[in-house]
């Protein structure tokens, strides 16, 4: 008998296997794409677009757009840590802006769910433009697990997988 952990989202693990916009309208609106997901982590990209600019003088992407990317990656990382998919809701996010994002460059965010509890999941995330080792934003977030009766936005996917 295998003791290996079975992940509800396991079939989606790997590079760019699905369109995040099909689950989340706002992720589609910002043209976010999946770079890679795996056990307890998610990497998403946000292509640069003029409409994301928050500082017209500096042409820098608005902090809130980065927050949206990080929130999305963090929620996905929590889903990717689960053995059985439960609804997730953000409790809080603290985003530190280490420097301005470089105008014109795609933004990448990686989120790691480092603790999945029965009620609360804890996530760390960073965002970068050129180099993962030189992030421009860093985030800590907490998420409610089994948040509401509405179900997981990935619930449609869950239906495709037979329960063990």
């Amino acid at each position: 008998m295998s003791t290996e952990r079975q992940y509800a989202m396991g079939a989606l693990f790997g590079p760019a296997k699905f369109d995040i916009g099909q689950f989340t309208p706002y992720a589609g609106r910002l043209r976010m794409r999946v770079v890679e997901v795996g056990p307890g982590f998610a990497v998403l990209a946000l292509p640069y677009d003029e409409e994301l600019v928050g500082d017209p003088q500096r042409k820098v992407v608005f902090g809130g757009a980065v927050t949206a990317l990080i929130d999305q990656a963090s929620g996905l990382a929590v889903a990717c840590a689960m053995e059985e998919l439960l609804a997730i809701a953000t409790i809080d996010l603290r985003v530190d802006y280490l420097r301005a994002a470089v105008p014109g460059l795609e933004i990448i965010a990686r989120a790691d769910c480092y603790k999945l509890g029965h009620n609360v999941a804890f996530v760390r995330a960073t965002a970068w433009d050129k180099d993962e080792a030189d992030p421009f934003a860093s985030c800590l977030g907490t998420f409610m697990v089994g948040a509401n009766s509405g179900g997981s936005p990935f619930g449609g996917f869950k239906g495709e997988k037979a329960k063990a």
Partner: protein
Amino acid sequence: MNRLVAAIPYARLLGMDVEETPNGIECVLPFAAPLIGNTRLPAIHGGVIGSFLEMTAILRLVAESGLDNVPRPISFTIDYLRSAGPRETRARGEIFKLGRRISHVHVIAWQDERDRPVAAANGKFLMA
């Protein structure tokens, strides 16, 4: 104020407006389908609420400081208190300290009743 909003592309993407009140500005975010995060509830995306709160904080700072550039966020912390349903959201920022270098702003967002906020945030901004 609405001229500044028109000059910020991301504020236009959100579709938000600013209303002048006797106690300072109040921001309004009309509902639109692309702003949804969870289609099953449905609920507005946490990133939209976070963005709206951050924009509200920045606009309040600009309104109160007379600054001609957009303050840059140092850190922004958002507490999500209730899910935000598919309807209008309003927000208001209060400045705790207007500094020469760093300012502190607290923002709340609500939908139906002001004393039942959907989210609250604390932000620190570089004014230079």
